[in-house]
């Protein structure tokens, strides 16, 4: 599959701490890619790079051929209309109701009438299995409901790319499977390129077409079945959830 998202020779540092140094990896078009790695390995940083929320000090971040690291503020805003992002904590506007949160991007950009907006919001909520929550505030939702509303909002503008930061964290097994199925459905029905950051190995193996593992000092990627057969103790440790000593490095990633 051709790459939809391509990170080339990317360097990111926060002060003295180097997160990525010469990182190169790609995410195939139309596939579900899952980023795995230890805490602090830069998984969420990678999503923020793709979303254009963080600019690398060096390298290119290509999304559908556009280098989001080099776009002007106006072009970046335009490019983001085709990128949806589901944040770990939902990032819903807490003073807006669920309905207002979902209607907001449509009112801002789609130029739809009130009835069309209402219909679109209800259709999205129904798609994620939520009804009767329009008037609730985000603070009144459970963790699972919050994730589903966040997913619905990320999908409001029919994006080509969906970025999900820890969509399974803090969920009970039933809610987790529900969110997992939703992501699968969204990917299959719409052919969206999805990049998911997760710590949840079982979900990863069920969901992923492609896995990117951020290991200390290197990156390993490929289909999950291929990775499972690799003779690499760190890869095996992650995928089979075994105990292993992970070597510490000053540079989190170096290709």
């Amino acid at each position: 599959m051709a790459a939809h998202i391509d990170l080339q020779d990317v360097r990111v540092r926060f002060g003295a701490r180097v997160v990525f140094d010469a990182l190169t990896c790609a995410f195939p078009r139309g596939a579900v890619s899952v980023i795995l790695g230890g805490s602090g390995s830069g998984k969420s940083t990678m999503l923020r790079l793709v979303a254009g929320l963080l600019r690398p000090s060096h390298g290119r971040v290509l999304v559908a051929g556009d280098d989001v690291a080099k776009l002007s503020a106006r072009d970046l805003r335009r490019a983001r209309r085709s990128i949806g992002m589901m944040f770990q904590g939902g990032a819903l506007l807490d003073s807006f109701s669920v309905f207002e949160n979902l209607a907001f991007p449509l009112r801002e950009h789609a130029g739809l009438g009130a009835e069309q907006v209402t219909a679109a919001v209800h259709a999205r909520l129904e798609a994620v299995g939520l009804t009767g929550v329009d008037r609730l505030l985000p603070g009144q939702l459970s963790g699972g409901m919050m994730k589903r509303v966040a997913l619905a909002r990320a999908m409001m503008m029919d994006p080509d790319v969906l970025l999900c930061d820890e969509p399974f964290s803090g969920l009970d097994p039933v809610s987790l499977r529900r969110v997992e199925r939703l992501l699968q459905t969204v990917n299959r029905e719409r052919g969206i390129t999805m990049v998911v950051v997760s710590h949840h190995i079982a979900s990863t193996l069920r969901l992923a077409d492609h896995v990117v593992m951020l290991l200390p000092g290197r990156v390993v990627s490929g289909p999950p079945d291929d990775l499972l057969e690799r003779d690499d103790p760190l890869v095996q440790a992650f995928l089979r959830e075994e105990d292993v000593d992970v070597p510490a490095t000053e540079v989190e990633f170096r290709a």
Partner: protein
Amino acid sequence: MKAVAQLGRWAVGSVEQLGRLTVFAVAVLRAALTPPVRGRAFLAELYKLGVRSLIIIGVSGFAVGMVLGLQGYNTLVRFGATESLGAVVGLSLIRELGPVLTGLLATGRAGSATTAEIGAMVVTDQLDGLRMMSIEPVHLVVTPRALALVMVMPLLCAIFIVTGLWGGYLIGVGVMGVDGGSYLTSLESSVDFVDDVVGAGIKALVFGVLVGLISTYRGYTCVPTSAGVSDATTSTVVVASVSILVFDYFITALWGV
């Protein structure tokens, strides 16, 4: 030598902060002039920052007026000039105490709340969520709050002054026995509309700009942790309060307001 190096670092840091604040101010101004007009958000902030500050401003103004009435009477009685009480209370409130105390109270009440609210939005990724919806947070979140603070400050100042004048009247006339007609006549004859009243409005407007910019900037740039929000809120109160006092001196010295 070490002290000089520290001083140098502090100076460079301060200039950098000032530069960033200026860039931020330009972004806010540009957002204010760029469609779409955020009328609903602006009105909501006017209510939150203005209407909800009315009680604290009214009560404080009345209390300050009562103190001025009492202190003014006790001083003027020594010179047999108690009929000038209205002028003393009025000029003190209009030229100085009204704008400055309103600025300080609004900083503590509305400025700190603004910083904490925007800071909480930073911590919970709400601003990044807006960016991912192709909505500029400065346009939607910052500008309505900053503009509302600029607009409510002169209005709150006017309320502070009016309640203060009545507080002074209550003590001077009601308690100390000053003639009510003298109080109001001395007030009317000593206060010049352009020099005093318009000047107070200008001061309050400047203080509104200071509090609006500092509180939104501190919230917008806070470190995304609970300690970061707390630091930003404290910093807003300290920096805005000191700025109000410093600017008050320069406005008075340069323009005689």
